């Protein structure tokens, strides 16, 4: 009975648009939903370092190398704040990493696609970060305080990334024939996966119900996807990139672009581990985590020795 009462007053707070803070009462389902979502978000930032990291050593100018290094650092930093936000819900970073390795926790499906040419770095910034921002702007108003604050900070940096990504695409499209081909190739490969980042259509989305009621999620998958398409189409046209969707057209009646059918079969195959890089991304993370074990052990051992020596010093 007590919980029922708590759940009712919790919902009242949510309905009044109050933020929920770590020590406040929250239903178990709310906590679980957030741990799942925030840890997935943190893992996505960290796994996302791999496709971009794949190009740092080959970045074609000093400026490009610095921008890319700074961007990947920002992403790692986002991973850190998001892990901390999830930790406020009573789960440790180590547990979250174990869940990632066991496959219990997911990361964004988009990073299961490869970064094959330099324009992919442009396309990832412009389309992938561009899609992520649409989602994250909406999450700035999410009901859980630490998550909302992390999103506000992250959005500021992501909008830089998106501009930098678009700048790469602009340069490539203003360049040699081969550069234009690279840019179009990247566009062809990243467009559909970027649309899939918003998740299944509202009618098929299994998590929407409670997440909306609890105001963890503020706008539906289809609404967010439409916002992304509407802002991106003109940017593509402006620099001469063709969007690989022959059914894409402006709909004057509703003031939005209509798009062709998304290949959800591919989406579910990739989610279920059959994308081009699923195995590679996870194995990479596991390999370096395992390789770093002796370093983490050494750091802990050294800390313990230091504490022991200080105690010894104090008592003698």
């Amino acid at each position, binding site marked *: 009975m007590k919980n029922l009462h708590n759940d009712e007053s919790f919902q009242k707070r949510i309905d009044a648009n109050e933020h929920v803070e770590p020590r406040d009462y929250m239903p178990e389902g709310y906590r679980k939903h957030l741990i799942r979502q925030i840890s997935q978000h943190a893992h996505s930032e*960290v796994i996302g370092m791999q496709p971009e*990291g794949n190009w*740092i050593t*080959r970045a074609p100018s000093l400026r490009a190398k610095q921008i890319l290094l700074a961007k990947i*650092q920002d992403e790692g930093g986002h991973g*850190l704040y998001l892990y901390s936000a999830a930790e406020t819900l009573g789960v440790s970073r180590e547990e979250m990493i174990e869940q990632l390795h066991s496959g219990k926790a997911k990361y964004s499906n988009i990073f299961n696609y490869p970064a094959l040419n330099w324009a992919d770095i442009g396309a990832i910034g412009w389309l992938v970060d561009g899609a992520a921002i649409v989602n994250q702007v909406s999450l700035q108003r999410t009901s859980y305080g630490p998550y909302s604050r992390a999103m506000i900070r992250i959005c500021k940096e992501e909008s830089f990334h998106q501009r930098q990504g678009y700048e790469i695409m602009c340069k490539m499209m203003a360049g040699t024939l081969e550069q234009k081909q690279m840019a179009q190739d990247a566009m062809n490969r990243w467009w559909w996966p970027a649309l899939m980042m918003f998740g299944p259509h509202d009618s098929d989305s299994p998590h929407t119900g409670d997440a909306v009621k609890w105001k963890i999620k503020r706008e539906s998958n289809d609404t967010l996807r439409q916002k992304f398409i509407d802002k991106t189409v003109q940017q593509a046209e402006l620099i001469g990139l063709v969007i690989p969707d022959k059914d894409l057209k402006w709909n004057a009646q509703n003031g939005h672009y209509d798009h062709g059918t998304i290949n959800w079969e591919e989406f579910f195959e990739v989610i279920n581990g059959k994308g081009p890089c699923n195995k590679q991304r996870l194995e990479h993370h596991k390999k*370096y985590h395992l390789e*770093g074990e002796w370093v983490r052990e050494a750091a802990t051992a*050294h800390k313990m020795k230091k504490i022991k020596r200080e105690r010894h010093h104090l008592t003698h």
Partner: protein
Amino acid sequence: MNSKEILYNYCLRLGDDALILGQRLSELCSKGPILEEDLAQTNIALDMIGRAQALFNYASEINGGKNTADDIAYRRPEFQYRNHLLVEQPNEDFAHVIARQLYISAFEVLFYGSLENSKDSILASIASKTIKEIKYHLQHASDWTVRLGDGTPESTFKMQRAINNLWMYTGELFEMDSIDDQLLKSGIGVDKSPLIEKWRKQIQATLSEATLTMPEEMFMQSGGKQGVHTEHMGHLLSEMQYLQRAYPDAKW
């Protein structure tokens, strides 16, 4: 060489150390033992590439704009790179990454500390900007040397091994040649000979805190400043230069 060419070459030497170490460190992205350390290594890489950019911009200016900073960074053949052999050594393991950083940063703190007083105002200002970063790099490398040296038996072994393996590349840091001598005379360059004693003291202090021992005297490798590199260098450059070389007409 006239005085312009001498100064141009000096900028390349300093810039190449920063560029090549930056390139090595950028290989470590997404491979750190913990996320915080991943960020620290790419942060140092970023400092290094930024320093290389400043030095190559200056070199390009000295050269009357005949080649840009990117041409200097990306379009030279291997034998025209002038970095010390130490910085091109591969990331064998985390202990090697730390030992390399400890050796070079302990040197750079002294070197750039002295270059801050250069009569060349541009070099002096690059030095005073970079010295703040180098102090952090040295602190970071020293802290890890102590943690690993005074950690577990495995980490002590690995840290000592890295310290020993890289020792033979440290002698070159203090060599003076005719370029160094001429720039020292004109008050622009740094006298590196007196730095070695301070450097050894610093390394000795860190190693002893780390319960590690100073490597024994050995024959020192040299050649980087004359463009004679180790076998690792060609691989590093072919990766770094790939797009610039494969698409020479493209602008990035």
